[in-house]
C-alpha cells in the first residue's frame, strides 16, 4: 500500500537506529482486511470506527431535526417527498402527530448518546489517550474492540426500531413512565420502546467497557516522566468523563431494568393510579412512583451532559493553547475546575425535576448545588479568555471552532443560571427557553469542540489535511446559523411557547411566532446543508487531502506529534519517548515551543504551572 511505503520512507528519514528495534515489532505478521479495519484492536482504528459511526448517526439525527423543523416552520404546507421517504408516517406529505414525537425522541436519543457520547468521547478517548500519555495501545485492546462492537450492535438495534410497524420510541428522549411503561398508551410505547431500551442497555455496556479501559490506561500506562500534572488537559478531561460514565450509567441501567419489568412483568415500580384513555380501563397497578424513574434517569442524565461537554473542554484547551502559541492559563485551576464539575455533576440531578412533584424544600438544596456549578464553569471560561489574551493567534479552523466553543458556552451557560432557580423554572420549564439553553450549551458547543478536535487532529488520524476553505465556510455558517436558530428561541420560551408541540397555529398567543418559526426552519436547513459540506470535506480529505509532510504540522508540544506521520499499531517505532516537561511550553525562553520530550536544560527558566 502506498501509505505504508510512505510511512517507511518517513520513518527511515527520521530515525536511523530504528532498524535495530526489529525485536519490538512483534506485530509485523500479516494483517488481514478483517483484523485491520473491522475487528481491529488498534486504538486508532477503533477511534475512527467510533468517529465514522458517529458521523452517520449525526446525519440521521440531524435529518430528523430538519424534518420536524419543516413541520414547525410550515405547519400548513405539505411536502410530498416526505411521504416518499416516510410512508404512512407522513401521509399526504404531512408529518403525523405520533411520528412527530418519534422524530423528536430519536433526535434527542441519537444526538445525546450515539453522537455526542459514543461518537465524541469514543473517538477522542480512543485516539488521544494512548498517543498523548505515551502508550502502545489501551490497557486492554480486546475490551476496547468489544466496546465498539457493543456500540455497533446497539446502533443496529436502535436503527431497526425505526422500521417496525408501530414506529420507534416516541415518549421523549427521557422516556418517562407511565407513557413509556404502558404499551397501550401510544404506538411508540410498543415494540419500538423495547428496542430502545435494549439498544440503550447495550450502549451502557459499551460505555462501561470503554471507560474502564480509559481510566486504567491513564493511570497505569503513562510513559516515564508523564506525571499526572504533565498530562495535556484533554487527557484530564477524558479521565473525568470516563469516571462519570462508570459511576452514573449503571444507575440508568437499573432504572431501565425496572422499567422493563413494569412493561412486561406486571410490576408497579413506576405505576400507580392510572386510567388509560385508549383502552378506557383503570389499571390495577398501585404503589409505584413515576418520580422515582425520573430520579434514576437524571442521576445519569445530569452527569451525562458533562460526559458530553468535558471532553470538548479538554480538546478546546489544547487546540487553543497550541494555536495561541501560549501556555494554557491556569493549568491547575483547569484541572481543579474539571474535578469540581465532575463532583457537582452527581449532586444536582433533581434540577431537571423542579415541577414534577419533587419536594420543594429538597428542591432548594438542588438550586444551591446547581448554582455552584457556575463557579468552576466561569473559572474555565476566564482561563480560556486569558489564554487568548495577547496570544499570537493562528486562525486555523480548529482554533476558530475553539473560540466559537467558548462563545457558545458562555451564551448557553448564562441561561443555565436562570433555569437553575426553581422559582424561575416554574415559568420556564418545558418551554423553548430550555431547548435554547441546552442546545447552545451542550449541543452546539459540544459539536464545536468536536469540530475543533477533528480539524486539529485530522492530520494525525489520516496523514492529510482537511480543506481549509471548506472549513472556514463550515465554521462561519455554523456559528452564525447556530445563534440564529437558538437565540430567538429564548424569546419564544419566555413567552411561554411549550416544547414538543406539533403545531402552534391553534393558539392565539403563539401565532405571533409563525414568521420566526419559518425563519428558524430555513436557517436549520442551511446549517444542516453546511454540515454535509463538512462530511464531504472529511471523506474527501481522507483520500485526496493535502498530504502532511512534517511530523509536527502545528508545532505542538504533546506526545502524539512525536509519532511517525502514519503511525502503525504500537504508535512509536522503537522506544516510547520519555517526558520531561508539561505539555504547554509555548513561547518559553524565546523559543516558539518546546516538545514534552525535550529534557529541561540547565539555564532554562523554571516551570510555571500555576
Amino acid at each position: 500500500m502506498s501509505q505504508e511505503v510512505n510511512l517507511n520512507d518517513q520513518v527511515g528519514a527520521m530515525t536511523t537506529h530504528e532498524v535495530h528495534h526489529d525485536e519490538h515489532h512483534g506485530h509485523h505478521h500479516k494483517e488481514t482486511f478483517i483484523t485491520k479495519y473491522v475487528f481491529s484492536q488498534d486504538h486508532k482504528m477503533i477511534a475512527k470506527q467510533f468517529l465514522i459511526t458517529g458521523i452517520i448517526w449525526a446525519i440521521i439525527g440531524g435529518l430528523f431535526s430538519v424534518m420536524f423543523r419543516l413541520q414547525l416552520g410550515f405547519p400548513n404546507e405539505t411536502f410530498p417527498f416526505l411521504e416518499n421517504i416516510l410512508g404512512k408516517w407522513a401521509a399526504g406529505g404531512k408529518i403525523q402527530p405520533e411520528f412527530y414525537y418519534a422524530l423528536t425522541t430519536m433526535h434527542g436519543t441519537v444526538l445525546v448518546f450515539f453522537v455526542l457520547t459514543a461518537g465524541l468521547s469514543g473517538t477522542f478517548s480512543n485516539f488521544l489517550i494512548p498517543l498523548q500519555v505515551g502508550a502502545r495501545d489501551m490497557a486492554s485492546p480486546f475490551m476496547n474492540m468489544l466496546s465498539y462492537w457493543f456500540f455497533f450492535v446497539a446502533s443496529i438495534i436502535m436503527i431497526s426500531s425505526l422500521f417496525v410497524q408501530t414506529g420507534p420510541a416516541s415518549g421523549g428522549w427521557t422516556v418517562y413512565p407511565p407513557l413509556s411503561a404502558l404499551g397501550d398508551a401510544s404506538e411508540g410505547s410498543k415494540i419500538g420502546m423495547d428496542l430502545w431500551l435494549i439498544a440503550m442497555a447495550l450502549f451502557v455496556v459499551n460505555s462501561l467497557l470503554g471507560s474502564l479501559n480509559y481510566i486504567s490506561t491513564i493511570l497505569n500506562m503513562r510513559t516515564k516522566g508523564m506525571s499526572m500534572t504533565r498530562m495535556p488537559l484533554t487527557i484530564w478531561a477524558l479521565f473525568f468523563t470516563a469516571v462519570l460514565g462508570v459511576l452514573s450509567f449503571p444507575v440508568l441501567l437499573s432504572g431501565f431494568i425496572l422499567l422493563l419489568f413494569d412493561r412486561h412483568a406486571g410490576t408497579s415500580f413506576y405505576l400507580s393510579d392510572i386510567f388509560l384513555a385508549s383502552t378506557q380501563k383503570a389499571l390495577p397497578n398501585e404503589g409505584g412512583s413515576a418520580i422515582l424513574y425520573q430520579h434514576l434517569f437524571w442521576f445519569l442524565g445530569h452527569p451525562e451532559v458533562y460526559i458530553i461537554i468535558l471532553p470538548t473542554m479538554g480538546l478546546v484547551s489544547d487546540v487553543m493553547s497550541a494555536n495561541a502559541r501560549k501556555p494554557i492559563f491556569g493549568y491547575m485551576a483547569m484541572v481543579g475546575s474539571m474535578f469540581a464539575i465532575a463532583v457537582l455533576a452527581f449532586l444536582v440531578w433533581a434540577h431537571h425535576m423542579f415541577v414534577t412533584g419533587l419536594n420543594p424544600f429538597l428542591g432548594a438544596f438542588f438550586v444551591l448545588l446547581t448554582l455552584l456549578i457556575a463557579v468552576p464553569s466561569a473559572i474555565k471560561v476566564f482561563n480560556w479568555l486569558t489564554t487568548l489574551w495577547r496570544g499570537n493567534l493562528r486562525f486555523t479552523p480548529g482554533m476558530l471552532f475553539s473560540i466559537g466553543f467558548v462563545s457558545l458556552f458562555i451564551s448557553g451557560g448564562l441561561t443555565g443560571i436562570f433555569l437553575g432557580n426553581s422559582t424561575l423554572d416554574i415559568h420556564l420549564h418545558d418551554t423553548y427557553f430550555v431547548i435554547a439553553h441546552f442546545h447552545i450549551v451542550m449541543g452546539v458547543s459540544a459539536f464545536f469542540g468536536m469540530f475543533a478536535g477533528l480539524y486539529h487532529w485530522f492530520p494525525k488520524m489520516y496523514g492529510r489535511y482537511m480543506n481549509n476553505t471548506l472549513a472556514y465556510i463550515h465554521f462561519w455558517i455554523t456559528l452564525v446559523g447556530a445563534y440564529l436558530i437558538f437565540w430567538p428561541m429564548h424569546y419564544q420560551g419566555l413567552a411561554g411557547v411549550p416544547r414538543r408541540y406539533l403545531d402552534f397555529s391553534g393558539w392565539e398567543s403563539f401565532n405571533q411566532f409563525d414568521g420566526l418559526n419559518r425563519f428558524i426552519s430555513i436557517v436549520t436547513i442551511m446549517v444542516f446543508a453546511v454540515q454535509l459540506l463538512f462530511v464531504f470535506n472529511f471523506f474527501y480529505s481522507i483520500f485526496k487531502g493535502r498530504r502532511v509532510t512534517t511530523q509536527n504540522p502545528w508545532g505542538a508540544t504533546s506526545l502524539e506529534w512525536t509519532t511517525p506521520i502514519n503511525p502503525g499499531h504500537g504508535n512509536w517505532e522503537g522506544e516510547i519517548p520519555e517526558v520531561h516537561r508539561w505539555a504547554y511550553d509555548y513561547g518559553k525562553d524565546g523559543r516558539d515551543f518546546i516538545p514534552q520530550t525535550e529534557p529541561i536544560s540547565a539555564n532554562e527558566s523554571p516551570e510555571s504551572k500555576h
Partner: protein
Amino acid sequence: MAQAVPAEQKWWSGGKSPFNVEYGKLMMWYFLMSDAFTFGAFLISYGTIRFASNSWPDPNEVFQSFPGLGSGLPLLFVSLMTFILIISSVTMVLAVQAGHAMDKKSVVRNLVLTIIGGIAFLSCQAWEWSHLYHEGAWWGSNPFLNADGTKATTNFSNFFFTITGFHGFHVFSGVVINIIMLIMTLNNVFERKGHYLMIEKAGLYWHFVDLVWVFVFTVFYLV
C-alpha cells in the same frame, strides 16, 4: 496497614502503575464500583418506594419457612444462606492466598469448595423462590399483608424478586467464572504464567457478590 513502601518511590511520575497493581485488577475494582452503583440504585429505589408507602409487609411474616421443618421459623433459612456465602468467601480468600504461594493443590481444593458454596447458595435461593411462588408471590403479585394488617401493594414482591434475582444472577456468573478458573488451574495455565493473579480478580468479584448480599440480607430480611 498500608503497604510498606520504599521511601523514595515517585508513584505518579509515569512508567509504572501509581498503585503498584496491574491494570486488570484496577479494571476489576472500578467495574465493581460501577456494579455497586447498579445495586445501589436498585436498593435505593426499594428504599424510596418503601418510604413512599404508608405501610409495608413484615419480612418475618414472609420469610419464615425452612425446608423440612415447616413454617413459623423466621430468619432461620436466610441465616443459613448468609453463612453459606460467608464460608464460600473464606474459601475464596484461601484460594487467592494459595495462588500467591503458588500452591496449586490448595488453589484447586479451595476453588472447588467455593464453587460448591456458590451452588449451595443458588439452590437455597431456588428453594426460597419456589416456596414463595407457591404461596402466591411473584412479579406483579403479592399475597402478604402489610405489618399493620392493611392490604399491601405488589411492590414488596416486585423488589424482592428483582433484586435477589439480580444478585442471584451475579452469584451464578461468579460460579461460572470460578469454574473457568478451576479449569485453567487444572490445565496449569497459571503455573506456566508464573502467577495466579487471575484468581485474585475472580476473588474480588466473588467477594463483591458476598458484599452485596450483606446489604440485601439486611434491608430485605432484617429491617
